[in-house]
């Protein structure tokens, strides 16, 4: 019935992929969006070749943020860190495939922000100017 909640988004929301935590992650980060209470944690295990062997996300929040996190873990599984670094906001929005207003876009991009935080060890800043 609804573009915003396409079946694929509902599916990722209801059946999140790679949900949980890793025992000894090589990279981990967590952040939230206090405006709506979305919270995402991402753990990575990167092997000697710089490839992402394992990825898990955990968290709570709205369907958009949770589906976005679930989809993101699928996108980066087996990729190298360099490939993961190259992921852009637009890549995420394309994967979601929906139009989002200014509030919901923050939900959608929170997982990517957390991923970049895990990789760089710092919170990423998404300045909407860039």
């Amino acid at each position, binding site marked *: 019935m*609804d573009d*915003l*909640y396409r079946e694929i988004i*509902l599916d990722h929301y209801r059946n999140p992929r790679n949900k949980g935590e890793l025992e000894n992650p090589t990279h981990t980060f967590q952040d939230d969006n206090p*405006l*709506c*209470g979305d919270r995402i944690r991402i753990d990575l295990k990167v092997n000697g070749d710089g490839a992402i062997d394992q990825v898990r996300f955990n968290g709570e*929040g*709205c369907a958009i943020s949770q589906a976005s996190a679930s989809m993101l873990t699928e996108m980066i599984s087996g990729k190298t860190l360099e490939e993961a670094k190259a992921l852009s906001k637009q890549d995420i929005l394309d994967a979601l495939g929906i139009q989002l207003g200014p509030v919901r876009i923050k*939900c959608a991009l929170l997982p990517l922000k957390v991923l970049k935080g895990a990789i760089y060890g710092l919170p990423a800043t998404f300045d909407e100017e860039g």
Partner: protein
Amino acid sequence: MLDSCIIRQDFPILHQSINGKPLVYLDSAASSQKPLAVIQAMDEYYRSYHANVHRGIYQLSERATEAYEQARCKVAQFINADSWREIVFTRNATEAINLVAYAWGRRNITAKDKILVTEMEHHANLVPWQQVAAETGAQLAYIPIDERFCCDMGAYDALLDERVKLVAITQMSNVLGTILPVREFVTRAHAAGALVLLDGAQGVPHLPTDVQSLDVDFLAASGHKMLGPTGSGFLYGKRHLLEQMPPFLTGGEMIRRVTWEGAEWNELPHKFEAGTPSIAEAIGLGAAVDYLSGLGMENVRQHEVELTRYALERLSQVEGICIYGPQQVDMRGGAIAFNLNGLHAHDVAAILDREGIAIRAGHHCAMPLHQKMGVMATARASFYVYNELTEIDRLVEALDTARRLFGG
């Protein structure tokens, strides 16, 4: 109930469709819509007599000054202030509270004092006092709410010792809808030697409000939540308090005389209105007050009681709903916060938007309250004079749709 058919004709914004469905606007607690009378009063000002006020010796400016000051008198009457001099125009309720926090709080509160607020305060009546406490070393204490979503008056008494300088409370919670027993709060505060600041952002638009019978020392309100324009709000303060306070913002208009060495302040209320005021906004607020007075605030309240009664009844039948706030309509206003089991409030709001229904979702600028309730966010529907019972039916149907979509 009010005849919302007739009232709705005065609100052009309501006659539109969102996603092919007639708009149902249920977010008046965030900001109300504006009747034609308000829109036109401002339009006429800009088209026929805009000029800066107070110092002009020409007719446009004299007309503008008169309209601006008349608006002040209307506001004073609306809340039954003793004098128009007790009304200071501000941008919003937040600025009004900050004015008191800066010009009264930081001057009168010291490290040995206490400030009391309730657990259900909006950030606007919380963060300024956290800041005053942090800067002065005073203690900020919270009057707890009980399981009925009301203030625990016994706990209030226990907190209210002679160290308390200020009790800052909301007239009506913007989340729970709870109406506070303001007169009771004031009597006890005054007996303990404390002043009371009332955050009327939600109360003044929806309840008959008489500052003299409530005997509050300060009242802050938002014009834009009571049919007035954005950029309008006001502070009421008892005259002797306002007289004693130093100015807050300084510059033109608020002075009597300036020399190289310093300045003398203007009389009330101009002392607190620095620079060119929000003239069209005050005029618009005056028109809003006329509109509300025309309906009669008792009737406005009764209309919302009926809407709220019906909404509580219908909503309580929605599967998996949890409603936060008092059950009895006489103890509450028409802001109803709720959650649907397993659904994030953002998702609820987004689905409702697809159905043309505008509600709010989030923490509603009351994060500590949400923390206490153990939720990160709630959905909130809120009513005003232009809402009607059938809109509540639309809300309930759309909630069922949301439940089905996410449940399935």
